[in-house]
């Protein structure tokens, strides 16, 4: 059985289209982010969050009214996977445990017949929130940097750049996609927290994975096809690895799908984001990374020479 075998698609010839597609998605995403930013979880914002399970169904609106009246105006209240489960969140965190205790006692007094158990309490002070935000930023920057350096060793600097720009593009597109879906399907309850950060870093690693496979093949083919121009060689390489790229992404996507469906609330944000990341990662590896390399080479005219490898003419 073969999938996408012996294809001969002119990927690099059509690269302008792909640039436009990418940039459009990113622009839409950025606009959406500006208008309706993805909410920050309490990991990054600080605050108190309670997950409560009632014995009987509850009405979210009712709870919201009660909280409004009891010094918690505008508290975020969501149902979590069923009419008995409620998630309450407020950016307040008083000294010690006053906030969560107050929330619990308000619930107790107003729902005397509906016993509930508090399944989870998370409290994050503002200092920790700020720290985690900084750490998250550094994490993303350092991964990109780390990959840049490693790839510069294994390939040329320009390839490293191409790969990292593609990765950066992946992050932007995924963030945009998350923003778009968050706007379309609010019930997905996407928010930025530590698990999302894990998703982003994993997708960076995964997309780099993909890109490297293609570059490896290009590196091999450049040696084999010394007389052909770079664009043809790249096209050959991308086509040759297409089958493998799609299959791998496909299987990983499948496992993430299982996670999304069966993995529960905690991992939902992660599986969703990473799922999108797989798609954009594959897309960027195939369409974007090599394109950037070609365009750079065309522009700069072989300014960066390969370490002891054959130069190629850049004639189109």
């Amino acid at each position, binding site marked *: *059985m*073969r999938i996408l075998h012996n294809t001969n698609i002119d990927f690099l010839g059509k690269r302008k289209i792909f640039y436009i597609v990418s940039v459009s998605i990113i622009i839409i995403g950025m606009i959406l982010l500006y208008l309706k930013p993805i909410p920050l979880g309490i990991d990054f914002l600080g605050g108190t969050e309670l*997950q409560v*399970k009632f014995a009987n169904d509850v009405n979210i609106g009712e709870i919201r009214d009660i909280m409004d009246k009891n010094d918690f105006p505008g508290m975020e209240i969501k149902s979590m996977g069923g009419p008995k489960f409620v998630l309450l969140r407020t950016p307040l965190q008083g*000294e*010690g*445990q006053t906030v969560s205790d107050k929330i619990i006692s308000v619930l107790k007094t107003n729902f005397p017949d509906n016993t509930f*158990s*508090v*399944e*989870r*309490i*998370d*409290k*994050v*002070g*503002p*200092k*920790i929130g700020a720290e985690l935000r900084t*750490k*998250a930023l550094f*994490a993303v920057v*350092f*991964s990109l940097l*780390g*990959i840049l350096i*490693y*790839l510069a060793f*294994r390939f040329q600097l320009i390839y490293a750049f191409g790969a990292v720009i593609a990765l950066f593009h992946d992050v932007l597109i995924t963030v945009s996609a998350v923003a778009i879906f968050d706007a379309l399907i609010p019930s997905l309850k996407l928010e930025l927290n*530590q*698990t999302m*950060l*894990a998703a982003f*870093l*994993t997708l*960076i*690693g995964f997309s*780099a*994975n*993909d890109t*490297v*496979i293609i570059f490896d093949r290009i590196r*091999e083919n450049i040696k084999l096809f010394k007389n052909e121009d770079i664009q043809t060689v790249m096209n050959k390489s991308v086509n040759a690895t297409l*089958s*493998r790229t799609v*299959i*791998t992404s496909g*299987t*990983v996507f*499948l*496992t993430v799908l*299982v*996670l999304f469906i*069966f*993995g*529960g609330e*905690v*991992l939902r944000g*992660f*599986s969703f984001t990473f799922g999108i990341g797989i798609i954009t990662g594959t897309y960027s590896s195939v369409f974007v990374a090599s394109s950037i390399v070609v365009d750079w080479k065309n522009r700069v005219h072989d300014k960066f020479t390969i370490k002891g490898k054959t130069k190629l003419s850049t004639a189109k």
Partner: protein
Amino acid sequence: MKKNLARIVLTGVFILFAIWFIYPTYRDNQLNKELATKTGQDSVDFITNYGDKLKKSREDRIKLGLDLKGGMYVVLDVDVIKFLEDIAKKKDDILIGILGELKEQTKTTDLPIIDLLVTKLNSRGLTLKSYYGGDRDDAKAVEKKLNDEIDNAIDIAVRVVRTRVDQYGVAEPQLQKIGNKRIIVELPGVNNPDEVRKLLQGTALLQFQLLKDPAITYKVMQSINKVLAGDTTQVSSNDTLKSNSLAGTKETIKKDTTKITKKDTANLKSDKKEKSKTDTKKDTTKSKKDTVKNKDTSAINTDTASAQDSIANMSIEERKKKFPFFMLVKLYEGGGADGYVEENDKPQVDFILKRADVKAVIPSDMVFLWSQKTIDIEGKKYFILYGIKKDAELTGKVVEEAKSTIDPQTNSPVVTMGMSSEGAREWARITGANINKRCAIVLDGIVYSAPVIKSKITGGSSQIEGMANIQEAKLLEIVLKAGALPAPLKIIEERSIGPSLGEDSINKGLTSSMGALLLVALFMIVYYKFGGGVADFALLINVLFVVGVMAAFKATLTLPGIAGLILTLGMAVDTNVLIFERIREEQNSGKPLRTCIDIGYKKAFSAIIDSHLTSVITGIILYQFGTGPIQGFALTLLIGIVVNLFSAIVITHFIFDILIEKGKQISFG
């Protein structure tokens, strides 16, 4: 064949190791299942017989993270500001003000506090040594000494917290000092967050403080009252407690005197008779004059004569205007100068006591402290406000032993304390010199009881009561035994997970893993036929190895960790796909099968290494910058990647080699 022999042996050894390390987890599960089916004597027997095995399995098994087991995760921050306030040699308003500013600042930044303090002091023309050092010390030395003291305090705090946590009786608690002023505490299986918070945050500063002479306390209260009422006249020396009885409302005294009696009993023998109902007319002060009728609302007299000016004749507004303090803080005949404050009024009284103009009339050797519990008077709950000598006669340092128990006489929980011999001597001296005076037992600034010293106590024993139940007493016992915290601790992050959520997560994790494994295995067989089957076999070994490595390192499994495992399944497939696609390509050029396989592995190798290493880079970074569950994810991912390299490249290769030698025709689809 020789090459393959080495590989087979190596793999075999690894498999055995993996099983060896995983076995305790399996055994732990089995033993616990069996234990759960037994009850009563059977279960006790079971534990005795299998005690060692149970313990060993528990220690060696894979740990479940808090998100899978339930429990609490707490990050404690040492309150350096409060510590600085406590150890300052001179505490004036300027210092308090500066420390208050620092407190706000440090809420969001993490700059070194001493440096900030020095800057602020210098900007006001003051130096650090004016507050923390002697005149002869030079500035740098003072700074260093202060920093050393802070470091020392933090280390002591870590030790104290560790002792408390150990004694609390949580299975496998984990404690870690982070940076130089944070402590991370993990308590699996705990589901009483309130108790834990109390356990971790209470400074446990125990002090024995004498009460101020009631006459003086009363005078101070009057001064406060005057400040509130805007009255600038002096408190006359004729105003003695004995000439004034009830202040304020219509409540009767009968009920409370008996309750005071109960509350104030201790090992110190208190004379119940003195406080009995029949003696409501007598004061507890040294005065023997019988003054007032208790039933009606009598007046606060500003001179002894005009007792007719009863408050009952005033309206509520007038009362509030003239005696604002006493409307909130009620005094009773027979209650000395203990102020009774309704539960709802407590915050207001607190506020009043913090006012600068009120503080100005409180003598510097005196402090007002609250009772730990409320008492019931006619259906309303009252806190008691005590006027207490600021300097402690004795502190908890002398307490060597503490035991929570139920007092047989009163049937309520108490904590009995034993003192060191020095402490016992001191205590004997103090009690001997203050007979008939009252001594308050104060913990963290709250009065647990204030009994009368009836006689000299020589045994060095003492008792704290006033706890709601035996659990509270037990907490107190632990905290007293572990010692006082040198600096207060604040909880800056807390996550509690209930056990049911944990179980739920485990189930979901397991289902997803199995589902994913199944799907992937199926795909491989369908697409790569027999080759795919071999890859699946390697995949299973892959999983075994990952779990084995985790068990060997006693790593903790979290829910994201399970996600990481599932992800490595997907990536493991990637490696196989790379190799098999190459093999297929080579097969197209018609080479013999064995050559194709060898070339396939060789050519795919560079791509495999590069792609895995980039994933490893992000994995490491994630581990560095993440916390808790995220680190669990990074760990499983990293282990999975490394293991995968081995199983995909080595294991599948030699399996193919062996099969080909045996002449099997392997199809790669």
